[in-house]
């Protein structure tokens, strides 16, 4: 087993174990911190796949943005020192059964494609460079992505306005 493969399996453990702890932890704040570790591990996986731009976006948006937003909302809405109520036993059992059944089914489907012909991966820096990504993202030619880019700009603007409208209501408090 080469060093690259060993690094991949270490990264997989660094993604899956914090993810599992994030969905099972009793304290909500710890859950958010485990989520942060898991997302950082995914950024490491993108570095390993040599898509450095996506890894940078993952760190900036998820680790720097969404997790911070989640932590702020935990502080606004929860007493973060208190334990979350444990889920009902029946619900846990059925959730484990559903997740395991789905996982096994998907694995069974996936193993049928284990001989998928993969092409030789060419080195980084040629296709996936930031310059290429930028010019193709904003190109108006046949394989350009300028229309989805503009649509997503409108979506982000609408989301921003929507957040302000939703969160700034000054209704009288419920008695």
């Amino acid at each position, binding site marked *: 087993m080469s060093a690259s493969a060993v690094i991949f399996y270490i990264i997989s453990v660094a993604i*899956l174990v914090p993810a599992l702890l994030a*969905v099972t932890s009793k304290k909500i704040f710890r859950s958010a911190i485990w989520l942060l570790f898991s997302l950082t591990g*995914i950024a490491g996986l993108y570095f390993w796949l040599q898509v450095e731009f996506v890894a940078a*976006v993952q760190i900036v948006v998820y680790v720097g943005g969404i997790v911070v937003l989640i932590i702020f909302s935990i502080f606004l809405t929860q007493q973060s020192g208190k334990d979350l109520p444990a889920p009902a036993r029946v619900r846990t059992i059925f959730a484990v059964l*559903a997740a395991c059944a789905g996982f096994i089914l998907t694995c069974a489907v996936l193993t049928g494609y284990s001989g998928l012909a*993969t092409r030789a*991966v060419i080195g980084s820096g040629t*296709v996936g460079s930031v310059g290429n990504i930028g010019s*193709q993202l904003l190109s108006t030619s046949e394989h350009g992505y300028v229309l989805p880019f503009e649509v997503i700009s409108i979506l982000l603007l609408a*989301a921003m306005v929507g957040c302000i409208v939703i969160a700034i209501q000054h209704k009288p408090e419920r008695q």
Partner: protein
Amino acid sequence: MTQVPLIHILLLSTALFFIGMYGLLTRRNLITMLMSVELILNSVNINFVAFNRYLYPDRLDGVFFSLFIVAIAAAEAAVAIAIIINLYRNFRSIDVESADEMKY
């Protein structure tokens, strides 16, 4: 990275997806459910990037799809947290069971 077959990355993302699914099914707190949704979206992103790198290494479409998914996830998280904070103002709780005003 050529020593690791594509199927191992797909198994990793499948495991991550079902971990998120488990969290979504067991948790009853809106913020933790949102965290599970983020895990699920990330597993999808891993698939897009892995397929792009392994099957079409000379193209960039998978990278663009994962970038757009990241942007949509950010917008979704922001709107969801605004809704959660508004719900907390009205119900003093963010448990999904307590938000039953429109139930009957």
